[in-house]
């Protein structure tokens, strides 16, 4: 049998448009058989006029039976939006009274739900604002800084947009409810406003998905376990959705319904709590011998643009040198990372003048080293000295800090006196 999928969009929000659309499809021979998460599923049959109706009542067995007796057949539902068809075009509408239709519709959109979503969004903003502080202290809006932190930058913006979308979703529910109440009181409809608002919410949702996908793909390539977690959580969500969507509407026992949703929610939240604590990224800590008596403890964070390897070497308990290695996708990116490291190291080793400190206090209210300004690359580079070595293209150093570039690899080394820098370079840039 021929099957066709069509995007639902916001059709289910507007009953008239939805019914007109479905009846047109039936006349062209496409019968609605299923309401998916994003698509209507149609099957090809003989073209015929069919009467479609939307209902918002709780679908009890008795109700279903009554509807069958008057010729209405249940097709599918999304939450409490139930879709029925009747072969008889002359059949009575399900709602013979606009007010009761609005009352039934209104029972789906509760002010409390809207405010809950807004509150949830606010809570998420507050809970994760700390993470953004960390991001903002490491991120500068330069190419080098962005490619080194691409995941955190994109991810934090995707999260912000997602939280904003949740809040706007709440506002949308409140708007719809307000509109229903206005219609009951025969005031002008807010439909145009709701449509525009809904468009904004949908665009933001798409934007956050577009931002999330590359980050997730970038991680999955190097850490397949993340894929398993994603698949697992989608599976749990699907089960939860199935439960709340299909079975529960037919249950008249409100208590059981609430309990099931509660259990599913608790399970889902637990997953949300457990997953961030599992260290997926830095799970390849390993220790390799470097030279006699010296061990290197390394871990890595792999990414398509710039993979970061952090290596600490120890002689017994004593730290010999710290080293960060950046493996970049292209030479251009490596150059940008090199420049960024020069600027960063110069800034970290520079004691700001009293004038600069005063300026910071004026600006932020208190003195903190993370507010010291970055110098321009060329200015910063002037403070570094050049070290000629056959192992690297560029090697600059400032006291015991070395910034080295060899083709697509960039090293950032803090060295103790008794190690020869050439030994380290020889080891890392083979």
């Amino acid at each position, binding site marked *: 049998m021929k099957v066709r999928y069509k995007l639902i969009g916001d059709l289910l929000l507007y009953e008239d448009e939805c019914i007109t659309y479905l009846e047109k499809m039936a006349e062209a021979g496409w019968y609605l058989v299923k309401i998916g998460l994003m698509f209507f599923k149609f099957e090809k049959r003989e073209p015929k006029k069919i009467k479609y109706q939307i209902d918002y009542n709780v679908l009890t067995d008795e109700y279903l039976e009554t509807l069958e007796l008057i010729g209405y057949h249940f097709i599918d539902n999304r939450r409490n939006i139930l879709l029925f068809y009747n072969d008889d075009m002359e059949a009575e509408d399900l709602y013979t009274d606009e007010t009761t239709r609005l*009352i039934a519709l209104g029972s789906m959109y509760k002010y409390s739900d809207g405010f809950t979503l807004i509150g949830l969004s606010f809570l998420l903003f507050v809970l994760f604002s700390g993470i953004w502080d960390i991001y903002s202290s490491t991120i500068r809006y330069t190419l080098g800084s962005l490619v080194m932190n691409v995941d955190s930058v994109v991810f934090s913006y995707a999260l912000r947009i997602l939280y904003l979308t949740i809040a706007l979703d709440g506002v949308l529910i409140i708007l719809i409810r307000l509109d229903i109440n206005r219609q009951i009181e025969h005031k002008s409809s807010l439909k145009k406003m709701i449509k525009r608002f809904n468009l904004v919410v949908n665009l933001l949702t798409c934007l956050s998905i577009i931002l999330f996908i590359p980050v997730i793909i970038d991680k999955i390539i190097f850490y397949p376990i993340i894929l398993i977690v994603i698949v697992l959580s989608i599976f749990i969500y699907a089960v939860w959705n199935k439960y709340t969507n299909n079975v529960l509407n037919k249950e008249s026992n409100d208590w059981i319904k609430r309990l099931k949703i509660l259990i599913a929610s608790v399970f889902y939240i637990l997953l949300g709590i457990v997953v961030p604590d599992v260290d997926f990224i830095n799970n390849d800590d390993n220790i390799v011998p470097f030279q006699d008596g010296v061990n290197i403890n390394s871990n890595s964070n792999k990414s398509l643009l710039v993979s970061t390897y952090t290596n600490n070497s120890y002689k017994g308990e004593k730290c010999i040198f710290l080293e960060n290695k950046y493996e970049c996708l292209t030479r251009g990116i490596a150059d940008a990372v090199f420049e960024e490291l020069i600027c960063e190291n110069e800034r970290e080793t520079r004691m700001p003048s009293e004038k600069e400190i005063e300026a910071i206090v004026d600006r932020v209210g208190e003195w903190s080293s993370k507010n010291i300004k970055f110098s321009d690359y060329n200015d910063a580079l002037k403070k570094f000295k050049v070290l000629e070595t056959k192992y690297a293209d560029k090697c600059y150093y400032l006291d015991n800090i070395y910034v080295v570039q060899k083709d697509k690899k960039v090293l950032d080394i803090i060295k103790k006196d008794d190690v020869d820098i050439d030994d380290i370079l020889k080891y890392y840039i083979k």
Partner: protein
Amino acid sequence: MARKEFETLTPQMFYILVVLNVPRHGYEIMNEIARITNGEIKVGAGTLYTLLSRFQNDGYIELIDEVDRKKIYQITKIGKRKLQEEKRKLIMQIKALNEIEGGEFYEG
């Protein structure tokens, strides 16, 4: 806000309360209303079930039995008082019609 609507009964609300003088379930209510009004007043299934749960919440009707998963409702004292109030209003309306000049014309 929606509750305000119940201060005046629409014809559908009125007839649902009237036929529930005798215990009935949903489908029976629809048929009975069609019968006593000669099909003039029609109550859609969606309207009926929305109103039934609403009336039950407001105490106008009560669930008295469940046979074969069919819920059987009957009017309560509060519901009857509501109908009496409605009757008073209707009589007042008829009286007003009769009193105006040429009112007998409306007597049919």
